[in-house]
C-alpha cells in the first residue's frame, strides 16, 4: 500500500467524485486508503466495493458512482470509444439560459387583461388589494413578479406537533428528575426549587403533491413558486409534481434561486401540461414514498382540479390510504374560487370523501388563507377529522367553526 502512484490515483478518484457533486470528506478518503492494508487494490471487485462502502453515503448516488467508477478506472480501455461527458449532479449543472417553464407560462397569461401598474415594493393599498384578489390564471407577467415579492415578504408558519422529547422549562408540568440532584448539590444538598420540563414542540413534516397537467397549466407557475417558498422556509418539506407520472422535485426546489430552481424542475419533469392520472400518481406515492415520508404526523397537501382520466373509484381508494397514513390531508383546488363551483367532476367528488380540508388556491388571498389554516392546525389529531361534507366558503375556510377551539 506504500505505492505512491496508487495512492495518488485514489486521491484523484475521490476528487473526481467531489467534482461530480458527491461530497467526500477527508475522513472518508482516509478510510478508503486504509482499506487496502487488507484488500487488493488490483482486484476490481475489492476496489469497487471498498470505494462504494467508504465513499458513498446515499443509495441514490450509486448509479452516478458506478458511472464515475467505470469512467475513471476503466477509462484507458473505453476512453477511445466514448469521449464520455459526465452527467453532473444537478446542483453543478451550468444553467444555460433556456426559456424556463416560468417564462413560458407567464406569456400565456392573457395580455388583453387590464394591467395593474406595479411599482417597486410600494403598493398602494388599492393595488395590493386588487393583486390579492386577482385570479392567478389571469395575471400578467408583472403581476406575477409582484406576487413573488409578496411570497417572500410573508412569514410562513406551519403546523406543529408535540414530540416525545423533553426540554427544560420553568412552567413545565413534569418534574425534571435528572436535574434535581444536580441543582440540590449546588445548594449543599438542600432542594430549594424544582426544575421542570415539558415536551418539545416541532414543526410537522409537509408533503405537497401538485398537479401540473394541462388543465392546471395556468396555475402551475404560481403553485410551484408557492411550493418553492415553503420548501425554503420550513424545516421538512417534500415536494412532488404529477400529471401522468409522479416526479419528486424536493432537490430541485432546494436551490435558493427560484429561476434556477424552476429551470431544474422543468428539466426533470417530462409530463408538464399533459393528461392527468391522479389515482396512478397517488398510488406511486403511496407505494414508494409514503412509508418513508409520512412518519411523524405529516401534513399532506394535494393541489389539483380533480380532472381525473382514470377511474374515480381507484382515486377514492388511494385517497383513503393516503389519509390513513398522514396527520391531515388537504386538497387545494383553484377552481373552488369560481363563483358557482361545485365538485361535480367525478374524480373530485370521489376524492372529497377522504379529504380533511378542501380549500381554494386561485389567488393570493386564498393562499394566505391556506397558510393561516396550516399555521392553526390542531396539534393533536382531533374530532375535527370527520369526513368532508360539502364545500366550504374558501374565504372563511381558515377558521371553520368547531375547529378553532381545538
Amino acid at each position, binding site marked *: 500500500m506504500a505505492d505512491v502512484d496508487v495512492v495518488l490515483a485514489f486521491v484523484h478518484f475521490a476528487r473526481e467524485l467531489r467534482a461530480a457533486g458527491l*461530497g467526500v*470528506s477527508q*475522513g*472518508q478518503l482516509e*478510510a478508503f486508503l*486504509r*482499506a487496502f*492494508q*487488507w*484488500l487488493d487494490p488490483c*482486484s476490481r*471487485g*475489492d476496489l469497487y*466495493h*471498498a470505494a*462504494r*462502502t*467508504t465513499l*458513498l*453515503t*446515499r*443509495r441514490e448516488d*450509486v448509479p452516478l458512482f458506478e458511472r464515475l467508477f467505470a469512467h475513471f478506472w476503466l477509462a484507458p480501455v473505453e476512453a477511445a470509444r466514448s469521449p464520455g461527458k459526465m452527467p453532473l449532479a444537478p446542483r453543478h449543472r451550468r444553467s444555460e439560459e433556456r426559456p424556463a417553464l416560468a417564462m413560458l407560462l407567464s406569456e400565456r397569461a392573457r395580455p388583453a387583461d387590464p394591467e395593474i401598474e406595479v411599482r417597486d415594493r410600494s403598493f398602494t393599498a388599492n393595488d395590493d388589494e386588487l393583486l390579492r384578489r386577482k385570479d392567478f390564471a389571469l395575471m400578467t407577467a408583472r403581476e406575477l413578479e409582484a406576487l413573488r415579492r409578496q411570497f417572500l415578504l410573508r412569514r410562513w408558519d406551519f403546523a406543529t406537533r408535540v*414530540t*416525545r*422529547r*423533553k426540554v427544560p422549562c420553568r412552567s413545565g408540568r413534569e418534574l425534571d*428528575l*435528572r436535574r*434535581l*440532584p*444536580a441543582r*440540590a*448539590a449546588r445548594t*449543599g*444538598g*438542600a*432542594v430549594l426549587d424544582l426544575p421542570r420540563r415539558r415536551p418539545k414542540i416541532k414543526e410537522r413534516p409537509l408533503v405537497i403533491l401538485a398537479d401540473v397537467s394541462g388543465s392546471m397549466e395556468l396555475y402551475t407557475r404560481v403553485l410551484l413558486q408557492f411550493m418553492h417558498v415553503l420548501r425554503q422556509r420550513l424545516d*421538512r418539506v417534500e415536494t412532488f409534481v404529477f400529471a401522468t407520472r409522479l416526479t419528486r422535485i424536493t432537490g430541485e426546489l432546494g436551490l435558493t434561486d427560484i429561476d434556477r430552481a424552476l429551470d431544474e424542475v422543468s428539466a426533470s419533469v417530462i409530463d408538464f401540461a399533459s393528461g392527468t392520472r391522479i389515482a396512478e400518481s397517488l*398510488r*406511486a406515492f*403511496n*407505494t414508494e414514498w*409514503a*412509508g*418513508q*415520508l409520512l*412518519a*411523524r404526523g405529516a401534513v399532506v397537501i394535494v393541489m389539483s382540479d380533480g380532472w381525473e382520466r382514470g377511474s374515480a373509484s381507484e382515486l377514492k*381508494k388511494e385517497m383513503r*390510504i393516503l389519509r390513513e397514513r398522514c396527520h391531515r390531508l388537504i386538497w387545494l383546488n383553484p377552481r373552488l374560487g369560481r363563483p358557482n363551483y361545485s365538485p361535480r367532476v367525478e374524480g373530485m367528488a370521489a376524492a372529497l370523501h377522504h379529504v380533511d380540508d378542501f380549500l381554494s388556491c386561485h389567488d393570493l388571498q386564498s393562499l394566505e388563507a391556506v397558510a393561516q389554516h396550516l399555521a392553526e392546525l390542531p396539534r393533536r389529531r382531533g374530532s375535527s377529522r370527520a369526513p368532508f361534507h360539502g364545500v366550504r366558503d374558501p374565504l372563511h375556510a381558515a377558521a371553520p367553526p368547531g375547529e378553532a377551539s381545538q
Partner: protein
Amino acid sequence: MRARLAALDYIADDALSVSVFLASKLGRPLLVEGAPGVGKTELAKVVSRMLRADLIRLQCYEGLDLAHAAYEWNYPRQLLEIQARGAAGRAAPGAAPAAGAGQVDDLFAPEYLLRRPLLDAIDPRRDRPPVLLIDELDRADEEFESFLLELLSDFQITIPELGTVRAVHRPFVLLTSNRTREVHDALKRRCLYQWIDYPSPEKEKQILERKVPGLGDALSRQIVAFSAGLRGAGLYKAPGVAESIDWARALQLLGVQKLGLDDVSSTVGCLVKHQDDVERLRGGLARELLEAGDAVAGHSPAGHSPAGNGA
C-alpha cells in the same frame, strides 16, 4: 468473510461482506439501510456470533435521549443520600455542617451512575470489544444523532460530572435505518455505508433453505418466485425476506408440498400485511403470480450462484 457469515446462516453478497470486513478492520461504524425485512438487524446478531462478542442493542424511538441511551444518575439513591446526610447532620449537631455540604460532590460518583447501552458498549473494563447495534436510527430525533457524533468518531462519552469515558477496545458498531427520514450527513460521513437490497431469487432460495431446513426444492422455488413477484407488483407493503421465511415456515407446518391457490389464501397473513394488498391478492394477483411462477419453474432453471470472492 462471506464464508464466515454463511457458516452462521447469513447469506451476504460481496458488497456487504466487504463492508463488514472493513468496518471491523478500520474500526468504523457501519450504517446499513434497506427496506424492512431484508436482514439488517439479523446482520448484527450474526456478526456478534461470528466475533464471539456480546451484542448490545439500542432500539431507537422518538424522544430517545441521553438518559435512556447512554447513562443516567440514580436520582432516588442520590435524593435518599441527601436526606440521610441531612438527618445525620441534625442528629449530631456537633458535627461541622460544612462536612455534609463538602461531600455533595460524591453524589456524582460512579456508584450512582446507571449505565445504559451506549456507555456499556465503551466500558473500558471490557476485555473484548462488543457488537453495538443501534437499531432503526431514523426513529430517533435529529438531536440524538448529534450526540452520537462524539461516540462514533472517538468512541468516548463525556459525562460532565465524572469526566470522559473512553473505550479501550473499539466496539463493532452497526447502525440501521429504514429511511423514514434522512440520517444527517455529518453522521453518515463517520460511517461506512451499505444498502441492502432484496436478494436475488437464487440468494433468497439459499436463505430459505438455511433458515427452514427440510423445505422442498420445488416449494422453496415457488415461494421465492411468488415473493419476488409481489415485490414487483407495487404493493403498499412489499414483503421482505423475513416475511418469506415466516411464510415458508407456515407452509411447512401445514405440510404443503406444492403451492396452490388455497394455500396462498389461507396463509396470506404471513406474507402481506396491508388490507388492500390482501384484497388484491385474493382478487386475482395470487393466481397470476402462481401461473407465472409455474411457467418459470417448468423452464427448470439451473441453481447457479453468482461467482465472486468474498473478502
